[in-house]
């Protein structure tokens, strides 16, 4: 759902840009706790992966294009604040190097795909974590469900923005039904991919999953004293 230049009217674009800048600012402050020497490369990789995933762009039914978003995946892997930063960077690169999403619509796009999916994904994930038993094996499923929920949420916001600043007055009911219908389908794909990806990482490098840190047990080291020649 990369919004191109001129899709929403100027006041709406400006407003979303201001809100997006605010959100990224909050994320920058929040990410200080999440981002260090070792997690910076991880954030870069997550960005690269989301980039790759979003390249799978397929036109769908009544209008807009659909593709996976990766917001929930980012939130679970690197934390919500860094997650917002990752997706925002992806959108910036896509806009500047691939002309995917207009530069004047960058704020809108960040709000839709960077902020909405990450926040909704993270909230659902946290909710599931607090209500379910603390087990590492459950993390991928929780992430998958969170990812599924995040996509229609972003679609809803998209319809809202279009109602405010859309260029043509189409029936909101039609748009809403179409967008939700399509994005529930995309959400299923998103959920499955997120489940698989988080599952693969949890299996061999659970320490890399931000959302799994809480459930990681501390390990004891064994010392073997041997007679040295």
């Amino acid at each position, binding site marked *: 759902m990369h919004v*191109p*230049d*001129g*899709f929403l009217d*100027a006041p709406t*674009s400006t407003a979303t840009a201001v809100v997006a800048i605010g959100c*990224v600012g909050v994320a*920058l402050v929040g990410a*200080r706790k999440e981002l260090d*020497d*070792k997690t*910076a*490369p*991880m*954030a*870069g*990789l997550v*960005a*690269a*992966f989301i*980039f*790759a995933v979003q390249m799978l*762009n397929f*036109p769908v039914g*009544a*209008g*807009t*294009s659909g593709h996976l978003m990766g917001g929930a995946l980012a939130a679970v892997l690197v934390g919500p604040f*860094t997650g917002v*930063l*990752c997706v*925002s*960077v*992806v959108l*910036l*690169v896509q*806009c*500047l*190097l*691939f*002309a*995917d999403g*207009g*530069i*004047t619509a960058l704020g809108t796009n960040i709000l839709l795909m960077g902020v909405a999916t990450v926040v909704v994904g993270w909230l659902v994930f946290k909710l599931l974590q607090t209500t379910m038993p603390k087990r590492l094996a459950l993390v991928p499923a929780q992430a998958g469900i969170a990812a599924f929920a995040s996509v229609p949420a972003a679609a809803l916001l998209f319809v809202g923005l279009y109602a405010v600043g859309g*260029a*043509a*007055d*189409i*029936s909101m009911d*039609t748009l809403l039904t179409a967008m939700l219908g399509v994005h529930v389908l995309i959400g299923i794909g998103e959920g499955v991919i997120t489940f*698989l*990806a988080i*599952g*693969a*990482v949890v*299996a*061999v*490098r659970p320490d*890399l999953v931000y959302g799994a840190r809480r459930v990681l047990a501390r390990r004891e080291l064994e010392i073997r004293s041997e007679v040295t020649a």
Partner: protein
Amino acid sequence: MGAGHGHKLHYHGHSVVHRAPAHLKILALLAFMLVVVATPRDWYAAFAVYLGVIAVVVAVSKVPPTYILKRTVVEVPFLVFALLLPFVAQGPKTEVLGVTVSQHGLEAGIALVVKGTLGVLASLTLAATTEPQDLLAGLERLRMPNQLVQIMAFMVRYLDVVTDEMQRMKVARESRGFNARNPKHWPILARSAGALFIRSYERGERVHLAMLSRGYTGRMPE
């Protein structure tokens, strides 16, 4: 993993446009598009002028126009949307070539195509004349916060690592009699995608540590 030896959209060249500082190019793109978006949708002459401006920049840059035109396909999904607008929008109807369509939707659709296309052409011109590395430096000069710069630097680098690892895995698979055309092999591809993620991460992590081992402090030496 070569540190930024071009990307698929970069067209190697030495024109004025290539050499212009990246931060100025980004600002120019932004200003240009703001003007385009703010232009009322029925000032068709203005849009013709904008298109002329892009054409001149492309000509100066010596990037073959077909090179840029071929890449406008990213726009296709929204073209579909624009084409549908006249049929789904409400309001007064009008007739075009014997088909009844929404007057409002028609105008909106045309405006969408025009403005969107200008945006795509302008961005592609920037992409074709700017290395990712320079773009990064440009954004840094524009005071993009350091955390974002770092994430973007790693992202650009990882895109190389991931493609590189993917290529290696492909060769390895084929040497052992694998043939990806067969759909029953898709589960294998899915599983090796998980391995690809960890592998790329760990390779990138080791390289990052190698950089730290040689005194890297987060900024490339001149």
